[in-house]
């Protein structure tokens, strides 16, 4: 008997439906507004929608996993947490752009808001899918909206060029992912990731090892691109530099989180049998280890030479992707440390980008020199940025430190000492460029010494990020307790069907 949508509880899809409705509404309304009217209230509507979606999602936490739509849409705790992170990031971005998007050079403001919502929707879909088809659709929705967002400032050459590079690289990586998915489908006859678990194990045992690994590695190739891990990170610096700063922030935080959801769902949802058998180190874990190590090294070393702050932050996000891959590779404190770090990363990176955006608006440049003497022009802003840099570097009393500590403990605990050592070494290397920004702000004198004001929206975002960074650094207990109450294992096993 076919089960149709009406048989299920609709409200589980609440978050996505709200965001979808908001995007549609905004796009229609935007068309009927006059060309020069202020479109910021559209952003406000979008923000309200995101918050409502977040509330919906938060209410679903703690329930057992639930699948709708012929087992393609899955609601489990892991997915919900990631969804909440995405929503939080998008909400903060909306808040910060409310005051500043016009200064960013984005002429098409209405499109900016609902494209952002569409990309957010794609990301949410990725976190909530149990089926390769919806995963791919969500991925592409996110990617294609991002391509357009990057190129939105079409008057500027760099934006168009960055968008071009992004399209090409993104297209190639999507093709790789699809190719890998086709093999996975061929081996198992199903596109549902959880049904694939058992069948892939059979195929693996039945002599099709090569194809199983082929499909996995093709997909990892593509995932490496999406998450900007070395050696697939080539697009990140150019794209981050060319895009408007809010879009860069979006790419750096939301896209990355969604990409991690993707990796998790496929590697641990579909290919979980590799970990269930008693193999000591499945190839997938080794591959992820290599990705992690390469990203850490490459990201941190190349960032040393960067003068353009967006490029520097791009390489830094490559390095952070490396750190975040470590729990996936070593399986030490897998869920807790990954999620903790994602939350910490959200706050510190978003905060840093918003500050960068403000500085860029006032000084017109995005290089390190634009930050010169910021401590005199706006001490609060400089202090906040210093905090974010310190957190990104991983110095105590900040969320970044606790996150890294957690990951390090996981690595050491699972006997990956060399990885832990590498992580520490690269962290020290990263001190140089993170503190470089601090050097600029505090040690140098500014070119002009006018103070500059802080727009409200951006100010609130920076405040929230500062509070988040400090709170997660000082009082991690609340977050840790909360994370421990969630049911992680449910994300790994298929749902026992047969109930109503």
């Amino acid at each position, binding site marked *: 008997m076919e089960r149709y949508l009406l048989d299920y509880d609709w409200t589980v899809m609440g978050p996505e439906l709200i965001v979808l409705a908001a995007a*549609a509404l905004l796009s229609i309304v935007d068309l009927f507004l006059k060309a020069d009217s202020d479109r910021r209230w559209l952003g406000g509507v979008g923000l309200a929608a995101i918050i409502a979606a977040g509330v919906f999602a938060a209410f679903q936490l703690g329930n057992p996993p639930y699948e709708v739509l012929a087992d393609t849409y899955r609601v489990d705790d892991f997915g919900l947490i990631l969804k909440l992170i995405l929503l939080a990031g998008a909400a903060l971005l909306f808040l910060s752009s409310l005051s500043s998007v016009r200064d960013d050079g984005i002429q098409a403001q209405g499109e900016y808001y609902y494209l952002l919502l569409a990309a957010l929707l794609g990301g949410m879909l990725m976190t909530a899918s149990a089926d390769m088809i919806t995963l791919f659709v969500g991925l592409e929705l996110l990617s294609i909206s991002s391509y357009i967002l990057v190129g939105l400032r079409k008057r500027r050459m760099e934006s168009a060029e960055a968008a071009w590079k992004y399209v090409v690289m993104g297209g190639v990586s999507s093709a790789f992912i699809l190719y890998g998915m086709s093999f996975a489908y061929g081996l198992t006859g199903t596109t549902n990731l959880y049904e694939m678990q058992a069948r892939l194990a059979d195929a693996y045992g039945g002599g099709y090892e090569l194809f199983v690994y082929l499909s996995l590695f093709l997909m990892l190739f593509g995932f490496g691109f999406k998450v900007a891990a070395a050696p697939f990170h080539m697009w990140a610096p150019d794209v981050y530099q060319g895009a408007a700063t809010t879009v860069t922030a979006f790419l750096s935080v939301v896209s990355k989180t969604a990409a991690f959801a993707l990796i998790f769902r496929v590697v641990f949802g579909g290919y979980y049998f590799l970990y269930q058998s008693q193999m000591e180190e499945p190839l997938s874990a080794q591959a992820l280890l290599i990705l992690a190590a390469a990203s850490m090294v490459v990201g941190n070393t190349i960032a040393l030479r960067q003068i353009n702050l967006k490029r520097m932050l791009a390489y830094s996000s490559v390095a952070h992707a490396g750190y975040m891959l470590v729990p996936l590779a070593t399986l030490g404190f897998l869920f807790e440390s990954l999620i903790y770090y994602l939350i910490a990363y959200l706050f510190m990176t978003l905060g840093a980008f918003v500050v960068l955006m403000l500085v860029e608006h006032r000084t017109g440049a995005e290089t390190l020199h634009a930050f010169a003497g910021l401590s005199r022009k706006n001490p609060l802003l400089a202090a906040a940025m210093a905090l974010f840099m310190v957190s990104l570097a991983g110095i105590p009393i900040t969320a970044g430190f606790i996150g890294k500590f957690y990951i390090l403990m996981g690595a050491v605990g699972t006997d990956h000492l060399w990885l832990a050592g590498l992580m520490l070494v690269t962290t020290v290397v990263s001190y140089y460029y993170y503190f470089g920004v601090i050097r600029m702000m505090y040690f140098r004198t500014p070119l002009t010494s006018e103070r500059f004001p802080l727009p409200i929206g951006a100010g609130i975002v920076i405040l929230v990020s500062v509070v988040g960074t400090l709170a997660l650094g000082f009082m991690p207990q609340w977050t840790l307790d909360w994370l421990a109450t969630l049911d992680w294992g449910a994300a790994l096993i298929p749902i026992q069907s047969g109930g109503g």
Partner: protein
Amino acid sequence: MDYTESYVTIVVFVLLGLALPVVALTMGRLLRPYQPSAAKTITYESGVDPTGGGWVQYNVRYYLFALLFVVFDVEAVFLYPWAVAYDSLRADVGLFILVEMLIFVFFLLIGLLYAWKKKVLEWS
């Protein structure tokens, strides 16, 4: 008639369709004169001497129409199976099927509306 027979017939049609031009043009080659001269082969521009190259810069509106075509063609791809299965689906869930497709078409109509409002559909 069964499956393969139908497609073989189609192949025959294709071959015939290809054969006709080949035959006709070969016959023509035998029958027609062949006296090339410089004046005959220059590009025709209403009788005056041609200027510029044989290409022209495309206006972006061609691309926009092609884009709209692709979008709606893909929509048609989704509409067709839905239409074929409509009756049997309707017996199971009622009008919900209609609402589903309405939502789908609605989103595509937003795209059309966007193109309309941004004056893409006008050939200026």
